[in-house]
C-alpha cells in the first residue's frame, strides 16, 4: 500500500456486533451530511429536504406508505441476499420485478378475459406466477454462468432493459385497457386482486409476506443443506467442488429463488401500490434493493427495516418533488451517497487505519 508515510492499513479481527452496528449508524448520519453538502452546492435547500425525509418516519400514514414502497425493494433484496451469498452478482432484480408484474397482471387478465382462475385463488396464483416467472427470468443468467461460465453481471443488467421494454410493449399493445382512452395502462385490477382487500392497507399484508419470506430465507440459508451449499459456493468454488457440491445445480436453484423473490416484489407493486400494469412502474426498485441488501449486511431480518427506510426515502422524494420542485433524482443521489458510505464503513470494519507521526 503506497500511502503517505505514517499511515498504515492493517486487517483487523472480527468486530463485536454492537460496535459494527454503531459504525453503520454513524456512517448513515455522515451520508446525511454529505448529501446536504451536495444539495447545497446545487442550490437546493438541504435542511428542508432532509427534514422532509425525517418527517416521513414520524407520521403513521406516511410510514405506511414507506412500508408500501419498501415491499418490492425488500422482497427483491431478500432474493439478492441469497444470490450475493452465493457470489452470484445478480444486478437484474429490476428486470425480475418487471417480469413479476407481468406475470401477476397476466393472471388477472386470464381471470378477467377467460374466467379460468376462480376468484378466491386469484391472489395466490398471482403470487405464484410472479415467483415462477421472475425466477425463470433469473434462471437464464444462472444457467449461462453455470454451464458456459458467462459472468452474470452484464446479462442480468441487459435483461433489465429487455424486461422494461417487454412491459412497455404489453401496455402499449395487446394488454392496453380498451376503455382506457388509449393510455398505456392495463385494465384496473378488481378489488379481490388488490392487496389492500386484506387487512385494510396493502402494507399490512405486505409486511406479513415480507416477514414470512425473511423467515424462510433465514431458515433456508442457515438451517438447510441447500443453504449451506449455497454459502460454500459463494465462499470458494474450489472448496465446493471438492466437497462434492454440484455448483451448477446450486446456482440454478439459487438464482431461481433470488429472481422469484424479486418477482413477488413486482407482484406487490401492481397488486398493492398501483392496482394495474403501467409502463416504467418501477423507479429503480431493483437497484435500490442492491443497496438495501448491502446496508443490511445480507441479513434477512435487517433487510426489512432497511427496505422500509429506503421506501421512506422514496415517499420523501415524492413530497420533495411536489413541494420543492426538485427532481426525483435528488433521492437517487441521496441513495448513492448512503451506498458509498455503507461500503466505506465496511472498509473501516475490516481494516484498522492508524496514523503515526
Amino acid at each position: 500500500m503506497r500511502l503517505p508515510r505514517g499511515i498504515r492499513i492493517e486487517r483487523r479481527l472480527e468486530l463485536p456486533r454492537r460496535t459494527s452496528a454503531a459504525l453503520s449508524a454513524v456512517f448513515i448520519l455522515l451520508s446525511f451530511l454529505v448529501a446536504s453538502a451536495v444539495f447545497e452546492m446545487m442550490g437546493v435547500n438541504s435542511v428542508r429536504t432532509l427534514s422532509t425525509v425525517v418527517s416521513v418516519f414520524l407520521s403513521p400514514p406516511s410510514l405506511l406508505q414507506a412500508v408500501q414502497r419498501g415491499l418490492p425493494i425488500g422482497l427483491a433484496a431478500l432474493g439478492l441476499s441469497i444470490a450475493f451469498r452465493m457470489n452470484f452478482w445478480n444486478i437484474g432484480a429490476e428486470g425480475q420485478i418487471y417480469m413479476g408484474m407481468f406475470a401477476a397482471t397476466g393472471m388477472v387478465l386470464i381471470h378477467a378475459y377467460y374466467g379460468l382462475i376462480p376468484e378466491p385463488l386469484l391472489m395466490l396464483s398471482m403470487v405464484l406466477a410472479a415467483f415462477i416467472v421472475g425466477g425463470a427470468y433469473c434462471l437464464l443468467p444462472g444457467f449461462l454462468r453455470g454451464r458456459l461460465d458467462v459472468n452474470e453481471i452484464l446479462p442480468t443488467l441487459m435483461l433489465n432493459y429487455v424486461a422494461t421494454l417487454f412491459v412497455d410493449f404489453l401496455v402499449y399493445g395487446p394488454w392496453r385497457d380498451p376503455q382506457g382512452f388509449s393510455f398505456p395502462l392495463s385494465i384496473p385490477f378488481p378489488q379481490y386482486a388488490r392487496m389492500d382487500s386484506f387487512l385494510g392497507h396493502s402494507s399490512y399484508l405486505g409486511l406479513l409476506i415480507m416477514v414470512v419470506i425473511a423467515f424462510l430465507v433465514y431458515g433456508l440459508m442457515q438451517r438447510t443443506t441447500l443453504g449451506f451449499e449455497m454459502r460454500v459456493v459463494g465462499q470458494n468454488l474450489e472448496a465446493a467442488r471438492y466437497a462434492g457440491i454440484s455448483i451448477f445445480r446450486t446456482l440454478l436453484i439459487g438464482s431461481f429463488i433470488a429472481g422469484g423473490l424479486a418477482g413477488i416484489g413486482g407482484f406487490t407493486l401492481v397488486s398493492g401500490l398501483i392496482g394495474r400494469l403501467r409502463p416504467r412502474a418501477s423507479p429503480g426498485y431493483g437497484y435500490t434493493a442492491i443497496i438495501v441488501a448491502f446496508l443490511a449486511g445480507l441479513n434477512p431480518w435487517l433487510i426489512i427495516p432497511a427496505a422500509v427506510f429506503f421506501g421512506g426515502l422514496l415517499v420523501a422524494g415524492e413530497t420533495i418533488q411536489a413541494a420543492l420542485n426538485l427532481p426525483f433524482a435528488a433521492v437517487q443521489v441521496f441513495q448513492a451517497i448512503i451506498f458509498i458510505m455503507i461500503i466505506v464503513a465496511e472498509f473501516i470494519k475490516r481494516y484498522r487505519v492508524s496514523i503515526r507521526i
Partner: protein
Amino acid sequence: MESPEKLVEMRSITKRFPGVLANDSASFTLLRGEVHALLGENGAGKTTLMNILYGLYTPDAGEIFVRGRRVQIRGPKDAISLGIGMVHQQFRLIPTHTVAENIIVGARDVGFVLRFGRINERLSELIKYYGWSISPTSKVWQLTAGEKQQVEILKALYRGAEILILDEPTSVLTPQETVVLFQTLRKMASQGLGVVLISHKLDEVMAVSDRVTVMRRGRTIVTKPTRETNQRELAFLMVGRELSELEARPMAAGGKPVLEASGLQILDDKGLLAVKNISLRLFRGEILGVAGVSGNGQEELIEALVGLRKVRAGKILLDGVEMTNRPSADFIREGVAYIPAESLRYTAADMTVAENIILKSYRNRRFSKRIFINWKTVYDEAGKIIKDFNIVTPSPFSKAGNLSGGNIQRLVIARELNLQDNIKVIVAAYPSKGLDVASTEFVQRKLVEAREKGVGIILLSEDLEELFLLSDRIIVMYRGEIVGELPRQQFDLEKVGLMMTGVKGAEVKA
C-alpha cells in the same frame, strides 16, 4: 591464490513465522565466481533464507552484507538494484506477453517508446551466448518449463544481476534440460557471477556446485567445498542421522483390493493426455506411495481417484463397485477421503471452523435430517474434533480464515478422517508440504493409525524419505505412466531416483 570477493554475507539471520522458527541464526556466504548449493530437506529453511536475501521477508534478527557493505533490503526492488536476482519455483512471468516484454518489464533503460527491433536483437545475442534457442518474440505460454526458466534467468541478468538465486530449478525440468541448465550455471560462474542453487537433491549438488551449505531445521550446519565431501556425508548432515533402517512390516493382507483402477486415461486442464494408461490396485491396510517428479500426471491421477476429474478411458472400482465418472459426492458417500495439498484452497475462509469441519460430511445422517442441518450436534461434535486434533482456535464459531497454516491442515485432516464412520480409502496428496516438524509428525501418525484400522491409503509425496517411512509399496510415475513398482523390502533411494527419470523398473534391476 588470492581469495575471491564476498558477494553476499548473511550473518545470524533469524526469522520466525507464527509457530515456526524458519531460520535460526543462519549464516551464509556467497563468493564471486562460484555455484553455491544450499542443501536441505523440505522445510529446512533454505527458501526462507534466500527470500530474505531477495527482500520478500525481513529478518527478525541478523545482518546482510552485499559486496562488503551492510544493507537493508526492504523489498525485491532493493534486491534488484543491489544486483540480486531470483528464479522462483513458481515462475513469475506473464504468459500472454512475449519473451522480450517479460524481460524488459519495469526496466528504466529502454526509453519511453519501446524499440522492439533493437531490444530483440540485444536479447537474441544474450540468448545465443548461453546456447539457448528461445525467440524474443514468442509468447511465454508457448514455451516449455525449461524455456520459461531461461526467460526468468534472462530477466535477472538483464537487470544486471551478479547474484543469482535459483529455487529448486530442476524440479520442473527434464534430465536433458537439467544438463543445459547446469552448463549455463557453470558459464555464469566463470563470468564472475555468484550463483545460489537451492536443492534437496544430492546428485545435483555434487554435479554442479563448487561449495555446499547444508541446512537443517532453520540452521546452517556446515559449509564445505563440494569436492571435499560426498553424497553419504551430505545425506547424513541433511537428515541429522544416518537414514534409519526401515522397520520391517508384514505385507498387507492381500485379498480383494479396496480400490482398483484399470486402463486409466486422464486429460489435464489444457486437454492434454496427462495419464496415459495406468492400472493399480490398493489393498486394505496398505499405504501405497506414489513417487515422481511433479507434473508427471500424479495430480490428475489422484483427482480422478477421488471423483474430482473425469477419466477419458478406463475403470475405477471401489470395493468392487464401479465408480467411474460418478460425481464426487458419491465418492464421499462411499468413504473415499481426500487430503489435498494447499489445504487453504479448500477451506471457506469466512465460514466457521465447525462449518468447515463438516464441509464434506454435512449430508451425513449424523449432521442432517432430510434437508435440515442439526447445528447443535455439529457444534458439539466439532468441539470434540477440535480437541482430538489439537486445532488451535478460540472456538468452533470462529472464522476458519483466522487459523494458521498448520491448523488449517489439521482441520482438513480432521474433516477427512471424520468423513463418515466407514472410511475405505484415503488419498493424500503432499499432506505434509509446508508444515513444520510437529505438524508433519502429526499427519504421518494419523495416516499410520488409519492404516492400522484397515483403511487403504494412497500417498503422493515429493519427499522420498516420507514415502519410504510410510509406504508398504511404492509406484513411480513418469510421463503419465507407471514405470516401476517396489515392495517395502526393496526400497532404495537410487533405484527410485532412476525410475523418476524414466528408467523402467526392469532395467533398474538389471
